[in-house]
């Protein structure tokens, strides 16, 4: 065969296999979800009042202003950030480890955070916590601090090991073993602790969007933006990794530095979320699969923005459900994501029969 004859074989530009229009729908859903999470809560506030409060025009009741600005708005923002962060982190981990079950916590970020929190809540005896209380360290902020330190320690560990270990599977197993070891320590702390403290720890481990204050958001927002920014610079290397590390190397990819950037970005995202909201499961593993199905693509140039938005939407929906509209109760967020999310994802994936074919592994 000689050169392709361009007159007899006209090349059709590859069809837009990517469903870009989907982003329009997702943007609308995001707006709806955001509004819904502002509207629903134990106190019923009309939507027009919420809009007026957001635009600084006051409201019928002064208490509503406080509820919306100091409670619901930070909570909704947190939900969006957490959903986006966990989904992007999970996507990167799934591609890096070529494992459909990988999630943001696969390397033990949450274990580290849990250990930090468990040490603060359970570890110090009565005198210890009195001491901490005296220093003003007990409370939400100290939990966030402890979780940050725990997650940060694991992050540093992961980066150090990631520089030495060449085989990703080894890294995966190390993460798993680290998780077992820390949960054993946590179990030990629980075993020797008193019920009230165990209750506090358990509540933290359920996860929550509601505990994040504006001052904490001032740390959380920039940290998550940095993590997302790193991810948005990585679609090309991630795509190359779809073919496996050997192929990626022969296509000119610097595997070592790419892997370190992926680990760094994904771990920052997972670590920050865990530090401020507790270990929130499910979103990080499910949203990437959902997006691969929705967009019928494994291309990270599509998937990264897609999981960012879909992750935010899923977290907002979870938040609305957790409020149990019309009731005084609030469900733990982890319960909602798993209880309501899992069947939904199963339905989507079974209907599309695409999960296996859309995942590169």
């Amino acid at each position, binding site marked *: 065969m000689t050169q392709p004859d361009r007159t007899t074989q006209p090349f059709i530009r*590859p069809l837009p296999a990517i469903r870009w229009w989907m982003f329009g729908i997702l943007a609308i859903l995001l707006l709806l979800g955001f509004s819904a999470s502002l509207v629903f809560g134990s106190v019923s506030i009309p939507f027009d009042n919420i809009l007026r409060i957001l635009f600084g025009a006051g409201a019928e009741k002064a208490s509503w202003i406080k509820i919306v600005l100091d409670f619901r708005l930070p909570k909704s923002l947190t939900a969006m950030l957490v959903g986006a962060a966990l989904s992007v982190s999970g996507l990167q981990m799934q591609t890096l480890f070529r494992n459909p079950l990988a999630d943001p916590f696969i390397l033990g970020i949450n274990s580290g955070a849990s250990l930090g929190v468990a040490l603060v809540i359970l570890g110090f005896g009565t005198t210890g916590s009195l001491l901490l209380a005296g220093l003003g360290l007990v409370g939400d902020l100290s939990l966030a601090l402890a979780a940050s330190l725990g997650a940060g320690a694991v992050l540093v560990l992961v980066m150090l090991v990631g520089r030495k270990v060449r085989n990703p599977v080894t890294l995966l197993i190390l993460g798993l073993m680290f998780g077992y070891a820390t949960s054993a320590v946590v179990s030990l702390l629980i075993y020797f602790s008193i019920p009230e403290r165990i209750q506090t720890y358990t509540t933290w481990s359920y996860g929550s969007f509601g505990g994040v204050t504006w001052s904490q958001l001032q740390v959380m927002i920039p940290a998550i933006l940095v993590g997302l920014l790193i991810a948005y610079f990585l679609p090309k290397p991630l795509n190359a990794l779809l073919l496996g590390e050997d192929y990626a190397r022969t*296509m000119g990819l610097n595997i070592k530095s790419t892997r370190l950037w992926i680990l760094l970005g994904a771990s920052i995202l997972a670590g920050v979320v865990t530090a401020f909201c507790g270990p929130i499961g499910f979103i990080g593993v499910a949203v990437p699969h959902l997006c691969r199905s929705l967009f019928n693509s494994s291309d990270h140039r599509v998937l990264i923005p897609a999981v960012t938005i879909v992750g935010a939407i899923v977290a907002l929906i979870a938040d609305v459900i957790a409020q149990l509209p019309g009731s005084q109760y609030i469900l733990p967020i982890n319960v909602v994501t798993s209880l309501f999310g899992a069947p939904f994802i199963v339905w989507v994936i079974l209907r599309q029969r695409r999960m296996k074919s859309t995942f590169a592994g």
Partner: protein
Amino acid sequence: MGDFAPEEDEIDLRGIDTGVLQAEALQIGYQQGRNERVSVARDLNLQLKKGELACLVGPNGVGKSTLLRTLAGLQPMLSGRITLLGKPLNRYHPRELAKALSVVLTEQVNVGAMRAFDVAALGRHPYTNWLGGMDKQDEQTVREALAAVGAAPLSERFFNELSDGERQKVMIARALAQEPLILLLDEPTAFLDLPRRVVLMQMLHRLAHQLGKAILVSTHDLDLALHSADMVWLMDMSGNMNVGAPEDLVLGGEFAHAFTQQGVRFDSKTGNFSFSSKPERRIALSANGLARLWTTRALQRAGFEVVPIQMIQDEFVEVAEIDGELVWRLHRAGWAVDHSSIYALLLSLNE
């Protein structure tokens, strides 16, 4: 064709005469544990030339993959020197290397939901910007790469819905889209049936000659190498390497030496393997043309030594044509029996 040749300012033309990829006193192997190095082959002196298809052949387990991966820079050499276009391999920046050399590996890849075009387009990785965006020229290169391997009609199909052979083509197109001068393929025929193997090798031969690529293919399929390679790199179990045109290696006996194992023999006359069980009986055959060739094969398989008709008079097979049909006539001590097929002949010989 010009689209596939690297820019002139990017290659060192001095290397072209002697070989674009050269290995001197190369020792390959792998690291085992902390200190132990396992050597697979040593003192390899090789050169891969532009416009040539070289086949790396040898029995399974002699280190063909190790050599290929070493030449591709995927694993370190133990000692020696590899130069690519006159420059040592280890001095190449990964992206620079990717523009000069690309590979197709044995492992089956699963890329999830991507179209064949997008998979081939991954080969543009070393050329595109940080986002992997492609301009018109990049797209054109990918299309030409797909067309060169006959995979243009597959462009729109999802990679994971293609057959093994089609995927192989797309992966080779991806390697071509890297616009390398050198192409290394590790056992590309492993998952293909025989006709597709032949077609693939023909295609690689054409790519080498028409596009001026230097192509090295590892295979344990000797037949294919004999028919399509310009050069054969023949590795034997002790790590020795013989290099030459396939015919030279047959005449020199290197093939027979490398592949002879218990019970299997390389026949230098036919270029085939045959069972070398000791013939138990002799039989004479009188036949011509194709009928002679295939009847001889069948008799050999059945354990006979086939000899010319003059030597044994009491038992011989005669192939005759009666009314346009072939008949195998078995003569035995003065009487003869006709058989309508080779199978029937063998049955009655074995009685």
